[in-house]
């Protein structure tokens, strides 16, 4: 049978409870903070507070466990996102550091040109290093400028110091051009085993030949310095750019090479051996300048090393 009574009772129950809810809602909104329902709520919260506190304390291990699980899930997502961010930032950082280093090196080279004694009118061509030799025995670089840019054989190449802003010398001689194509050139560095440069200690004027110590790009040797000439640590060594009747140094006079770090004076030997820390950072050369023109009045008549 269709139970009308049950239906009525059900509908009445629903209506009563909905009406009650709406009445409470209306009364709650209508009354002030000190009204009946607000007071009832405050009272109930005071009653519930210790129960909730106890339950919260009792259930803390379970909550911690689920919290740990949730945190682990969240941490996995965060980990993914952070990894991507780290990757992106690392890439940006590398890019910025490269730009910064390039800028420093260019600034170093510009600063080098403005130094006292540096040869004027050399018409430098700035080039980027595109390859370098993998062996310590053959120290050479390939640059992205060639004969079409005015680069020729045996031209001097300069490079910046490792940190031109903090170093008292901003750069120095790096090597010479030993091979040229239309768009590239090969630079043999001072650290190459075959290299040798006529140089002079300033201001004493002691002359010698700068040769590399293979395997140690941070140390050059100024050899054949006469024993009687006084050389002290910390003095600067520059290219001598000497000129004789038939021969002349490849490098113009006055290009800084390095700083004297130690002097080996052997009484038996005729010559002193002077250790030099080069100004150019041979380990990290990214940008160089080829001096494509000799200073006016010093045209090359021949080739000689030293």
């Amino acid at each position, binding site marked *: 049978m*269709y139970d009308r009574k049950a239906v009525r009772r059900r509908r009445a129950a629903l209506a009563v409870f*909905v009406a009650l809810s709406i009445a409470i*809602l209306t009364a709650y909104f209508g009354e002030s903070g000190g009204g009946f329902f607000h007071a009832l*709520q405050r009272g109930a919260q005071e009653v519930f507070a210790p129960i909730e506190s106890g*339950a919260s304390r009792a*259930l803390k291990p379970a909550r911690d466990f*689920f919290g740990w699980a*949730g945190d682990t899930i969240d941490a996995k997502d965060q980990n993914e996102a952070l990894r991507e961010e780290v990757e992106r930032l690392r890439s940006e950082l590398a890019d910025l550091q490269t730009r910064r280093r390039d800028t420093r090196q260019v600034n170093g080279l510009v600063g080098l040109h403005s130094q006292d004694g540096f040869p004027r009118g050399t018409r430098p061509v700035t080039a980027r290093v595109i390859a370098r030799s993998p062996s310590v025995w053959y120290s050479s670089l390939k640059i992205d400028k060639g004969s079409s840019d005015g680069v020729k054989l045996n031209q001097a190449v300069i490079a910046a110091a490792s940190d031109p802003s903090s170093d008292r010398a901003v750069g120095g001689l790096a090597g010479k051009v030993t091979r040229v194509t239309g768009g590239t050139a090969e630079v043999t560095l001072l650290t190459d085993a075959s290299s040798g440069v006529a140089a002079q200690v300033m201001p004493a004027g002691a002359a010698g030949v700068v040769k590399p110590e293979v395997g140690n790009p941070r140390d050059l040797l100024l050899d054949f310095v006469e024993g009687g000439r006084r050389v002290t640590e910390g003095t600067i060594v520059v290219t001598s750019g000497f000129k004789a009747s038939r021969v002349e140094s490849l490098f113009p006079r006055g290009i800084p090479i390095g700083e004297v770090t130690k002097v080996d004076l052997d009484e038996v030997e005729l010559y002193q051996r002077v250790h030099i820390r080069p100004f150019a950072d041979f380990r990290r050369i990214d940008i160089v300048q080829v001096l494509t023109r000799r200073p006016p009045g010093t045209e090359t008549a021949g080739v000689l090393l030293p």
Partner: protein
Amino acid sequence: MRVSPSALLRVGLLLLVAVVLQLSSLSQIGIAGGHADLVVLVVAAVAYYAGSVSGCAAGFAAGFLLDLASGATMGASSLVLTAVGYGVGRFREVRDPSHGLMPIPVGAAATAGWVVAFAAVSFMLDVGARVSPLVLRDMVVTVLLNALLSLPVFAGCRRLLRPVLRVDRLEARRRGRPATREAGPIGLRGMEV
């Protein structure tokens, strides 16, 4: 469900425990942005086993308790949970589903109705600020978590309420006896055999 002191005590205790657990623990366990909601599951379970009248009464009481304890707007939870309890109870009375996994869709649907209706009521009442789309994500997570919790919660409620139920349909079905059906509005149903 027979209205008796025992029944009132059991349902009252069930609702009280659910509200306390909800406020002291479950609300603080965030999983993927959302959290489980035990109160609506308990209301749905009471309605599912005891019928629509008991369901809407339990919904009203649970909402009242919840608003009292949480300090929320009084009456809002009662209104929505009354409707949820009534709806679940009617679903059971009209459809009389027999599948053992039925608590899962029932719990999920009840939760979905609860979160959506409560959001609508809250929005109409006193939410003046902009609502983030993340609210939708939290709602979905709550529905999914409640769906997972439905089976154990319904089983626990049934166990507690069984002594005071007029007819335990599942138990009757298990023993091979047809349950006595109450009269329904459709006519074909509700005829006692």
